[in-house]
């Protein structure tokens, strides 16, 4: 470790190397400088780039934004939405920004869940963050970093969304966020063309669905395909199966108790539901259409798992409404087209078909006037409609205009969510402690697909809580 130089022992060859190179320093320096030249050409771009011009605040188009017009400023927003969908989000509030002069700088990241914690801890919290899980938001509510909704926005939220939705962001009687996008995770994708050709009917009850599966298997068509591979989140599609089965078989009260851990994770009722799922997912006669045997479920990616439905190699695929984006672009997604979906049917007539779903919530970390204005705007039906009209998005807002939803799946999902009789429950895994909900629950279900016993799996998850 002694850092003293030992020049006398330097071998002749070693001495020659630097000297030889020293004769050509100009070339090396030139090569190293090349990026600098490129940088210089980029400086013009860096010097200043400002957004487009604003609209005339007095014009009729700006009428709905009159109350926010004298505020100005800019708001930093951070969320998990990125690429194309982030662009649509920006377009959606463009008019608001033009009319009010409040700029919204949205930044999306695939690492949102980890980064938001770092940003908040580092004193660099965004003004508004879009949370895909209420459980994550709850952590910031507890630590006192997230601020309650300002009164205006809270009133708008209470008018617009049902208690089922708001209860997830209500802490001590105060709302902390406004619901944004929503999705439905109880959909079964199928091909209307294939159904029509073979005379299959969309099943109305779980038993009918099993009968249909048997018929398909008899016809030589694998009735189900599934895939739970999803990188670090491998296993979550299987948890959706169990959640849907629990909610349909035992009703929302048992579901809530299960999610809140008031009954053990391996309660006999839950075992019963997983056995029901077992009859489909681990039934070699039923799976895994287009991919292989039962175990191929664990290695098939959630994004690709449903594609065989479109190829006629698999009958049905249970996946959330967001799967609409995964079909090849020229697929006709409609009730009589290539691909459509039905709500996973009822197990118990009394319980009906409650919906497991999810969505996003916008919560704020600061309360400057422009941030309050943006929060109020995000709670309006105007924003929901503006974003919905751009496609691939729908809100559970009561007054949202369904005519604006281009995609029939979005319309179907929005209709399901708005039905005043329907019971809505958030994806349970998102509300369990992270170590369980996004840890052992996923791992346990992956092991279960790979052959572990049903009770053993649930006991493993229970023990980790």
């Amino acid at each position, binding site marked *: 470790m002694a850092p003293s*130089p030992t020049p006398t022992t330097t071998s002749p060859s070693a001495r020659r190397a630097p000297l030889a190179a020293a004769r050509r320093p100009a070339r090396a320096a030139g090569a190293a400088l090349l990026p600098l030249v490129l940088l210089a050409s980029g400086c013009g771009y860096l010097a200043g780039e400002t957004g487009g011009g604003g609209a005339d605040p007095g014009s009729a188009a700006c009428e709905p934004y009159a109350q926010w017009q004298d505020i100005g400023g800019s708001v930093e927003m951070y969320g998990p939405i990125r690429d194309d969908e982030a662009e649509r989000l920006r377009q959606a509030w463009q008019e608001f920004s033009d009319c009010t002069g409040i700029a919204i700088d949205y930044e999306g990241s695939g690492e949102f869940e980890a980064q938001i914690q770092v940003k908040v801890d580092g004193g660099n919290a965004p003004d508004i963050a879009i949370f895909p899980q209420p459980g994550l938001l709850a952590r910031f509510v507890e630590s006192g970093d997230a601020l309650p909704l300002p009164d205006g926005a809270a009133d708008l939220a209470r008018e617009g969304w049902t208690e089922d939705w708001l209860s997830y962001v209500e802490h001590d009687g105060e709302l902390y966020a406004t619901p944004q996008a929503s999705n439905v995770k109880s959909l079964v994708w199928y091909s209307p063309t294939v159904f029509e050709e073979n005379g299959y009917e969309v099943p109305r009850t779980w038993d009918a669905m099993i009968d249909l599966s048997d018929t398909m298997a008899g016809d030589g068509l694998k009735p189900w395909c599934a895939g739970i591979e999803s990188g670090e989140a491998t296993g979550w599609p299987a948890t959706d199966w169990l959640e849907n089965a629990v909610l349909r078989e035992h009703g929302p009260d048992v579901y809530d108790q299960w999610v809140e851990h008031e009954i053990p994770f391996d309660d006999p009722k839950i075992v019963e539901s997983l056995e029901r799922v077992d009859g489909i997912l681990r039934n070699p006669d039923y799976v895994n259409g287009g991919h292989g045997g039962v175990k191929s479920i664990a290695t098939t990616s959630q994004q690709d798992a449903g594609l065989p439905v479109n190829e006629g190699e698999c009958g049905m695929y249970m996946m959330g409404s967001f799967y609409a984006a995964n079909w090849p672009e020229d697929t006709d997604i409609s009730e009589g087209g290539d691909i459509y979906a039905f709500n996973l049917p009822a197990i118990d007539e009394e319980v009906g078909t409650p919906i497991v779903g999810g969505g996003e919530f916008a919560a704020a970390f600061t309360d400057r006037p422009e941030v309050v204005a943006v929060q109020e705007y995000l709670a309006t039906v105007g924003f929901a409609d503006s974003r919905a009209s751009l496609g691939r998005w729908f809100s559970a807002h009561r007054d949202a205009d369904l005519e604006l939803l281009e995609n029939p799946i979005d319309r179907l999902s929005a209709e399901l969510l708005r039905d005043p009789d329907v019971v809505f429950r958030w994806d349970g895994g998102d509300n369990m402690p992270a170590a369980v909900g996004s840890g052992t629950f996923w791992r346990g279900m992956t092991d279960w697909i790979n052959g572990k016993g049903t009770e053993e799996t649930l006991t493993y998850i229970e023990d980790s809580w």
Partner: protein
Amino acid sequence: MTPNRTDPGGRAPDRSSPDRRGPAQAARVRARLSGAAGSAAAIAIAVLWTLPTAGLLISSFRPEEQIKTTGWWTVPFDPEFTLRNYADVLFGSSSDGRLASYFINSFTIAVPTMVFVVLLAAMAAYALAWMRFPGRDWLFIGVFALQIVPLQMSLVPLLRLFSDGVAIGTATVLPPLDLPGAFQFTNVWIAHTMFGLPLGIFLMHNFISRLPSSIIEAARADGAGHGTVFRRIVLPLTVPALVSLAIFQFLWVWNDLLVALIFAGGSIEVAPLTVRLAELAGTRGNEWQRLTAGAFVSMVVPLLVFFSLQRYFARGLLAGSMKG
């Protein structure tokens, strides 16, 4: 995404030079390596090594449906190619999809950082090797030890330093950094420079300390101060090491995602290419076919840098990390 920083140091084991073991043994090794069996093994390894990259390259030209349903090795049976993935990556479907600004951001982050690290590391290494001052060895050990601190540990404190500043009591020692325009990059520059310096100083120290003391002593005897010795003698003699450190630092910063995500963020004004590529797959990963083309687009610059300066890279790294 964040390569182990100590890797190149560790990857250059003390390869006992053949001439020390005697010419006979060296000749035998050489003969064995250049024989038919040796060549065959080398080719087999090279093919195995390149196969995944080749598969990625082929995939990047395949249409979306094919990428998602069949493997790249089925290409000979069903050849169908498209430039769609590259078009998506380069020009994007959204208005901020233009990759050019992210390219420039990447350069704006990587080049100044490279200059800072190389200059500071060379100066520090010179001081540690050739200037006599108390505590010098301890300082060197301290710098050496810093290499084992995972940079993840310092992310939150550093971010807090930037966003809150430092205050002792009510006296502000350092105000929060909130700089406009091109200086938005200051945070990333400082962060990357800090994370790059320990290894840089270590590599440069090993190189600079091995310069013949007679040259430096002669210069000192002729009346040259430390500044002159450093500029006129040390810098010209260490060009290979400087260039290799520069390349290494440039590549590391170019490929970095984590530090950029935290200190630069994702806005189009400051986000580098890696951040853009990370979001290319779409919110739910449904557009992952674009990643194949994205990988090759982002590889272009590192490949250019590496191939054009390859000679310096290998030579300088070995020279710097090997004790003579």
